[in-house]
């Protein structure tokens, strides 16, 4: 239905963008990058006492890791959502709607549950991060590729199953938590609610390395993304190993989402918002531009949102509530307008 009307007819433009259009996109990028840098700078400087070097140092020590984490998360979610939307050729879906966040939480809980908090896996946060990612990669690719195959790539069914899976994962996770030893639960809670504020630098380094590895492994697949958007038949005709590419890209998406969730917990609607904003603004089908655009939007929204939450509301609203309500309304709005146009 709408995915066809949204992407198919306009796809031709992507092949030969007019020079004027390309120029316009460059302007847009410059502005977007400027806003992103501005929000980073604002976040770093608002309320900082520059006259006192010790306070300055203290503030920077708190804020620099936070900003780095948010940059990583914005890139992960923006890139993953954009790639995912293109793979399944639908602009109202994000991987987070499919329950990948809650799957990650479940896996993390299950690892602690079965290994116990005394084990090496639980005590060393780096090993625990790697084990989580590994399990997530295997299980999620298995579940979701099975799901896509079973439903014959019918996106709406995948979405419905995904939302139901979300509550399944959450129920299993809560059941485990309730059956847990209270001491183990304390340990779990401390690692689960890893918000922007308490991420250690080794994890940051580790996730940057992971992201680099994912990008390196997928460099060939990412190049053919533009072709994949044309549809399965066209892509195969143009010499793309469709099924294999899709599977590899899906694995990459899963890993990126896992990294983002591991760092900040579930932010379900962010991907939907930034990917669609990027599509609306840039009006192109080149994924190098789209991914960059949605990552930049992610930076602006996350850092700007965090700034507003911290300064304006003095932490009275968790940012996740902001994103859920705003994202949900935006989702309904998208449905409404796409319906009108279609």
């Amino acid at each position, binding site marked *: 239905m709408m995915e066809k009307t949204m992407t198919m007819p306009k796809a031709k433009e992507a092949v030969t963008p007019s020079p004027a259009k390309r120029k316009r996109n460059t302007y847009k990028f410059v502005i977007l990058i400027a806003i992103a840098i501005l929000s980073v700078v604002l976040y770093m400087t608002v309320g900082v006492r520059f006259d006192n070097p010790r306070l300055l140092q203290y503030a920077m020590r708190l804020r620099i890791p936070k900003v780095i984490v948010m940059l990583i998360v914005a890139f992960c979610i923006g890139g993953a959502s954009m790639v995912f939307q293109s793979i399944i050729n639908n602009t109202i879906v994000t991987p987070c709607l499919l329950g990948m966040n809650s799957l990650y939480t479940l896996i993390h809980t299950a690892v602690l549950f079965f290994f116990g908090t005394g084990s090496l896996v639980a005590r060393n946060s780096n090993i625990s991060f790697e084990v989580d990612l590994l399990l997530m990669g295997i299980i999620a690719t298995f579940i979701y590729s099975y799901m896509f195959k079973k439903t014959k790539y019918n996106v709406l069914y995948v979405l419905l199953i995904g939302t*139901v899976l979300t509550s399944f994962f959450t*129920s299993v996770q809560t059941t485990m938590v309730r059956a847990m030893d209270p001491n183990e639960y304390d340990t779990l809670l401390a690692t689960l609610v890893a918000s922007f504020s308490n991420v250690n630098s080794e994890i940051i380094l580790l996730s940057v390395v992971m992201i680099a590895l994912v990008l390196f492994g997928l460099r060939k697949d990412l190049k053919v993304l533009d072709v994949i958007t044309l549809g399965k038949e066209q892509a195969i005709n143009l010499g793309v190993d469709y099924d294999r590419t899709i599977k590899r890209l899906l694995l990459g998406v899963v890993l990126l989402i896992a990294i983002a969730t591991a760092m900040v917990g579930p932010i379900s609607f962010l991907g939907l918002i930034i990917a669609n904003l990027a599509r609306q603004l840039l009006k192109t089908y080149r994924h190098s531009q789209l991914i960059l655009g949605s990552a930049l939007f992610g930076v602006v929204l996350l850092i700007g949102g965090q700034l507003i939450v911290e300064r304006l509301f003095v932490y009275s*609203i968790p940012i996740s509530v902001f994103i859920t309500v705003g994202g949900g309304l935006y989702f309904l709005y998208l449905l*409404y307008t796409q319906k009108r146009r279609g």
Partner: protein
Amino acid sequence: MKNSGITVLLLIGIMVLSAFSLFVGVINISFTELATGDFDQLQIMFISRLPRLLAILCTGVGMSVAGLIMQQLCANKFVSPTTGATISSAQFGILLAFLFMPSSTIWSRAIFSAVCAILGTWIFVWFVQRIQFKDIVMVPLVGIMFGNIIGGITNYLAYQYSMTQAISSWLVGSFSTVLRGRYEIVYLVVPLVVIAFIFANHFNIVGMGKDFSKNLGVNYNLVLFAGLTIAAMITASVVVVVGSISYIGLIVPNVAAMFKGDKIRGTLVDTVLFGALFVLVCDIIGRLVIAPYELPIELIVGILGSLIFIALLIYRLGHGSKAIRIKAGKAAAGGNAQ
């Protein structure tokens, strides 16, 4: 005769499990001591065990009938109190009752929650009818989003006024707090279900579309919104006592329809019985798994329910639309889906 066989089987199952449910718990109750009139044991029976059983039965009956009504009215098999924003609106209402009337009784909370549930469901159905989705799966998806938004607002308000803990017992359904004097509101389900039974044929007709019901002399909008109101009131009276229990309204009517077809009069009795049985089984599982503690029923229903739901979906995809009759008559909410 095969059809009434199922009904009898369900009835026997409910009776056996009800008897079993009365004797499951931390304190052992033996039948012989009850018969001799042991005061302590009788007290446990009448203050805790019996109310719990009755609440379970009412919840099962109520939620599945609410689901059945909503599915018939919207002509969409995936609509239910969970996927139609009814439950989250009811929770929102409870929060409002806490905010505006801190000394609220269970009755005033029920009123707040019912009003919100009705409004939420109306808005959802209005939105869905206005957009006229081509694909039936879109409707529950929008409903879940709708529920998420309302849930987000509830969370925000609860967080703002430090009500998170107070509200949390209504977010996860559990029968462990059901005691004499605190659960009677759930009996409201009974008259509402009777009303639903009387007007069953009207709901069926409205499900066939606006023009069709006009031809048969049924006031479309009146019956539609009256039916939604009944479903929302049932949901609210269950949510106020037990907390939210998802999926029953979604799964039970679908399974019943697989055996009995879509005519509401024909399926209503089986839906009611199957709903009660399903909740009973889930509750017993929740009480046995980590005895002497118990798991809230919402978790058991969440696990079993979502698995059954996904199995239903995949089964339908594999066997075509005849496997589960997804579309009852001309879809009102789904438009001209092919």
